[in-house]
């Protein structure tokens, strides 16, 4: 079953970032390899035997919770899902998410994401009280967004945030998935187009797919969430004929 796994009994060296946002360095730790070992197993071994205060977040160890996010050899990954044997004989460098401030070692301060979620209004506004009558295909359409585990790997890799630091102007792909989930819920009646156009700043995304590439849940963030949201904004704000017709019929919807 597990024959492609690393050779048991062999040792592997992990270079782990130790420090905070201001200063830090990689420390090398030797870890005995067991079959199927993931990076999180190796970090737990280091905690138990060499560095009891090595800071790392984790919860479910099954890629369901999105806690153990970080960067392995520069790539955003979940530590619980990344196997040592995937790296062959390459060195393994383990770092925290770099787009957010580092609290300590492998733990970054991701509170910015939760603060944006608090600003997401309006929330879900169903057309009628439950029980709802929905078809499975309607559920399937939004179920993809509900798979998001809030690991923030997409936020980490998004260059609007990472390279350009535009935290005040764009909420990043994870929040776009969350907004898409609400916008495309078959029973929802609210509109978040103004929010997307202003504070959430979907226009800043230039569709490079980096977020989609790193999503551990395989959500098609760019195609299924961001592009449809951009289209909604374009329809609302950049179609002159539609805007003129709307103005004739009723007043412009105001911000919440």
């Amino acid at each position: 079953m597990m024959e492609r796994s690393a050779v048991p009994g062999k040792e592997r060296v992990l270079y782990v970032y130790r420090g905070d946002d201001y200063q830090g360095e990689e420390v090398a730790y030797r870890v005995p390899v067991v079959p199927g070992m993931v990076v999180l197993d190796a970090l737990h071994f280091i905690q138990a035997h060499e560095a009891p205060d090595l800071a790392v977040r984790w919860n479910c160890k099954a890629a369901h919770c999105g806690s153990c996010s970080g960067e392995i050899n520069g790539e955003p990954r979940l530590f619980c899902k990344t196997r040592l044997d995937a790296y062959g004989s390459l060195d393994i460098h383990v770092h925290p998410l770099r787009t957010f401030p580092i609290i300590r070692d492998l733990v970054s301060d991701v509170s910015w994401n939760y603060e944006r979620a608090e600003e997401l209004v309006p929330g879900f506004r169903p057309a009628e009280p439950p029980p709802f009558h929905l078809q499975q295909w309607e559920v399937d359409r939004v179920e993809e967004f509900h798979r998001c585990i809030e690991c923030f790997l997409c936020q980490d890799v998004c260059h609007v945030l990472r390279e350009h630091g535009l935290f005040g102007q764009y909420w990043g792909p994870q929040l776009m998935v969350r907004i898409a989930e609400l916008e495309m819920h078959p029973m929802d009646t609210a509109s978040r187009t103004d929010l997307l156009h202003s504070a959430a700043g979907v226009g800043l995304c230039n569709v490079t797919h980096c977020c989609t590439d790193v999503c551990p849940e395989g959500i098609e963030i760019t195609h299924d969430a961001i592009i449809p949201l951009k289209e909604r904004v374009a329809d609302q704000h950049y179609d002159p004929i539609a805007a003129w017709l709307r103005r004739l019929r009723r007043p412009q919807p105001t911000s919440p």
Partner: protein
Amino acid sequence: MTAAGGQAWETLRHDVLVIGAGGAGLRAAVAVSEVGLSVGVVSKSLLGKAHTVMAEGGVAAALGHLDAEDSPDVHFRDTMKSGHFVNSARMAELLTAEAPERVWELERWGAVFDRTPAGQILQRAFGAHSYRRLCHVGDHTGKELLRTLQNRVTQLGVAFYPEVIVTRLFRDDSGMAGALAYRRVDGRFVLLRAPAIVLATGGWGRVYAVTSNSWESTGDGTALAFAAGADLMDMEMVQFHPTGMVWPPGVRGLLVTEGVRGEGGILLNAQGRRFMADYDPKRMELSSRDVVARAIYQEVQAGRGTPHGGARLDITARGAAFISRKLPSMRAQFLALADVDITREAMEVAPTCHYMMGGVRVDPDTCATRVPGLFAAGEVAAGLHGANRLGGNSLADLLVFGKRAGDAAARFAAASVHLPVVAASEIEEEVARVLAPLRQPLGPSPYGLHSALQEVMTRCGGIVRSGPGLQNGLQQVLEMQERAARLAAPGGTLYNPGWNLALELDAMLLLGEAILRSALERTESRGAHYRTDFPEEDAAWGKQNVVITRDRGGSPSLRTVPVAAVTPQQQRVLAPLTQDVTGRAPS
């Protein structure tokens, strides 16, 4: 760190403090917030990461969408039967009556569930449920439930304190005064003042070596409640889920959802025999969890296990398309972590410690503990599940009793006229106790002691127990408690997992002792509690719960109390079961 001139802690004030941000804690917070009171929620992790996300199969509610014969009464009967009648009939009645409303409420807040062709919520079969009853979305129902509640508390503006560890509760005879905690992200102490506190801290599966539980499940809340004067009950009742992963070593214990069996998966031993036919020919793989877990254990003991000591769970007959749609997380989990494609090969599974039926003893209607102002809901509370929990009942439990605890705590807080004072000296004393492991230059490692505890609990207090084994285990745990006083955790207060574990070990050692003592006390086998020296159910024990009270010296003292009486109405609902037992026509 400590007081150098000024106070070393920040003080925050709420009407109700909720400890724990899983399903029960968040549902309680919603209830408090909806009546306009101020509520603060503290959590050991970030928002939305609690162990509830690992619940895969679904939430049990007798909606009767597929089987019109189903009803809350049948669900009540199933719950009592599965609990081997040592559970609280009142709690089971409330659960089964209120679960449907709690599920529809989730829809109103944005949750999506899989649908029937008629457009209603789809329900799946699960072990020991008479009808198809579990509302689900794929195999990530717990995440859906938690995310929905997370979005709801975010919208309501509930104050949330992530990565905060509570170490002590303060009270007087009229109510709670607050809790002392420290924040992992800056290592600072915080006094959370509130007249009412809801404990929703989950279980303590981490006392066992093989468990489906995350690092958080160390029973802190249970130990806090006990220290504050609350009673514990049914501590011997530990659920081992029949199907955890066994290979590779790093994932041992990781949950394989009962949904696999619910959707048609079969269990085979190494000889290819569908062995459940020998243990429960009527219900087969969908027998109750205690029966299936013991069956796998016995097959392995008899030498009919797989190479890594488990059974084979095979769902390949349902075809790749079906499996990918109904069990996507399971498929991904086995592919990524075990190189097994479950659409083409069998999984290797063995029992894993999954859930604590026992916990803090509460009033069925209000979730109030014996301590005024202290409430408990969800896995931390005892009573609903008795000797064995039905799959899907824990998610229903979180919603129904989370709301009830929140409502009751809000009423208590609204009626409370004074907030007891917490003396600065008491806080300073607690701060000093909490910081002690950081200041010990030499002493045992918390990691080493934790593994030792897990080994003893697994060997002596696990799926099969005996008097001498339990006695031996208890002796070792008591010795470990002495060693725990000298634990050393190098490093500082800032996000230090070794220090954190040293503090959690206090709770785990207490709860380990409670499990072993209660298991010794119950000289019979019932549900999840199986003793080789008393292998049969004893009718007299069927009328008793084991309760642990904190004596004056702070030590656990055991007594038995009668199981709460069943009302005439409940008796009428249960009647078909007694007919079943006496050999007359079942319902």
